């Protein structure tokens, strides 16, 4: 069942209805053309603005304003240098730090929780399950106002930890949910065999269960990377220090500051977007499984 997401060929137009060609054939061709027209138009609508963003980063300011559709006269990679110099390098590094730390914490803590909820007997397991999964129902916006004071009181306001811990806490419900639904399907004989071999609960987790969950853990990691890399609300409210800003907030700052250097803004946007687009294309299978399982099977 782990592989249900793997794309398998389904129905398609191949089963043609046994009708004579003629008027119907004509309309079929028209319909087909319209469908391909729609699909192609959508591809252009999606791809063109993204390519335009990349191309504009290589133009000069006057080229962008004067001839938005055109190609640059000369490829000017200087915009990337200027973008990196005016903060993007720092924002990028901050995003890497916050994303990396929250991915490790979220995955580890959620996998432990899923283990407790599926493979061993614990008191109040039903209550704990509802408490964890119930977090899925809460919108982050709702907690923002009190969190300002709490984070200040705990001394982590305006530090990496504010974002790392918030990104972890708010994603534990989803990640636990995802990993739990995979773990619950592993056969119990696996644990039994490990116990017979004299393994402790701790060893069973690290040596047996965790490795068996690799596919879903990859999905969980990827979705957490996407979330943490792109998160804006918490990053806007809980980070004020310019040197700690992550990309989503940093880029917005850059664009309001660099009103006369559009190519640098485009360069920063391109730098922020490329890692996630690349991740998606490289790990599509895991992406799709995570999204599909997360939304309910």
């Amino acid at each position: 069942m782990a592989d249900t997401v793997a794309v398998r060929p389904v129905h398609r137009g191949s089963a043609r209805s046994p009708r004579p060609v003629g008027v119907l054939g004509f309309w079929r061709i028209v319909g087909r053309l319209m469908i391909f027209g729609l699909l192609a138009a959508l591809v252009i609508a999606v791809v063109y603005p993204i390519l335009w963003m990349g191309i504009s980063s290589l133009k000069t300011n006057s080229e962008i304003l004067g001839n938005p559709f055109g190609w640059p006269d000369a490829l000017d990679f200087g915009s990337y240098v200027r973008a990196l110099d005016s903060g993007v390098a720092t924002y990028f590094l901050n995003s890497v730090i916050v994303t990396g730390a929250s991915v490790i914490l979220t995955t580890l803590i959620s996998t432990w929780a899923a283990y407790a909820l599926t493979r061993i007997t614990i008191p109040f397991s039903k209550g704990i399950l509802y408490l964890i999964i119930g977090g899925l129902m809460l919108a982050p916006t709702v907690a923002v106002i009190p969190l300002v004071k709490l984070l200040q009181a705990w001394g982590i306001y305006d530090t990496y930890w504010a974002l790392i811990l918030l990104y972890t806490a708010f994603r534990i419900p989803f990640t636990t949910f995802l990993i739990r639904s995979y773990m619950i399907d592993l056969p119990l004989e696996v644990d039994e065999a490990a116990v017979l071999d004299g393994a402790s609960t701790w060893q069973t987790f690290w040596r047996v269960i965790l490795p068996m969950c690799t596919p879903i853990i990859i999905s969980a990691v990827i979705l957490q990377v996407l979330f943490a890399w792109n998160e804006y609300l918490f990053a806007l409210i809980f980070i004020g220090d310019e040197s700690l800003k992550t990309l989503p907030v940093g880029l917005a700052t850059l664009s309001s500051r660099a009103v006369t250097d559009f190519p640098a803004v485009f360069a920063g946007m391109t730098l922020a977007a490329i890692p996630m687009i690349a991740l998606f294309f490289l790990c599509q299978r895991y992406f799709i499984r995570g999204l599909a399982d997360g939304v309910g099977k």
Partner: protein
Amino acid sequence: MSEGALVTEANRVELTRASSTLDEPKGGHGRGRKWRGLLWALPALVLLCLFVYWPLLLNFRYSVEQSNIFTGEQTFVGADNYVKMAGDPIFWRALGNNVLYSVVSVAFQVFGALILAAIIEGLRRERLRSWLRAIYFVPSAMSLTVTGLLFAFIYQPKGGLLNGLLESLGLGGLAQAWLGNPDTAMGAIIAMSQWQGFGYSTLLFAVAIQRIPSELYEAAAIDGIGPIRRVFSITIPLVREMTTLMIIVTLSGAFQVFNEVMVTTSGGPDNSTQVLGTWLYRSGFVKNDFGYAAAIAVVMFVITLTLAIVQVTIANRKRL
């Protein structure tokens, strides 16, 4: 992007399987080991309580207080913040914008995406299908800040792509400052949001459609049922559960909109693009009226929780 995390599975949870485990037969220290098992869930519980549940509870208290971030003073004011909200035209406009956002998003990102997914999955070549699914998803992998800044350029009055396109089509008369005009700004942001999100739901619908047994389509084709009718009589009814889920996810996302508006207009011009999230932000962090912001948060909480409960109920009913 909201990943639309959902809870369907949560209520079908059978703990039966989960609880028949191995610690018991080891006898002796069984009871101690049982309690020790709690340690595995402890970090999750601690973080959730500290960063999710505790602030949520505090928010209710804040909403009946007048508080100031600088002085730290808090005074009980009863329902004052809520009364103020009821008489605040910008609050109602924000709520109205959220409703508009939901209606358009459900139309495009649920029904539009469903039709699109059915079209894609009806194509013959697997290669083409997987490329289309992937390309349409790309905007969902980009941060909303990047999308927002990109569209701010597209919508620019001078040198913007949209006006340039209109002019080249001879529709130059329609050209304008899309985000600067109170009449078009909200529509422009909502349109951008559809661009960003339609591929995400199309992908999920495509996965759901792939799970429909192909025999159904073959049998229908043999009976002489055409491709369009096959979509309406097989595909759409069989992905109904996914459709319901997507409606709720989309609605819930539409009431939490923040990033899109913040990076394009911050709620302006003239508060025409204010949504609950940005109005909360502005009230709390620009005007320092924490009590009022907390009251708006309570409204958002009630809306999103209601949607979540509806979803759980539907999932449960299906289960029974």
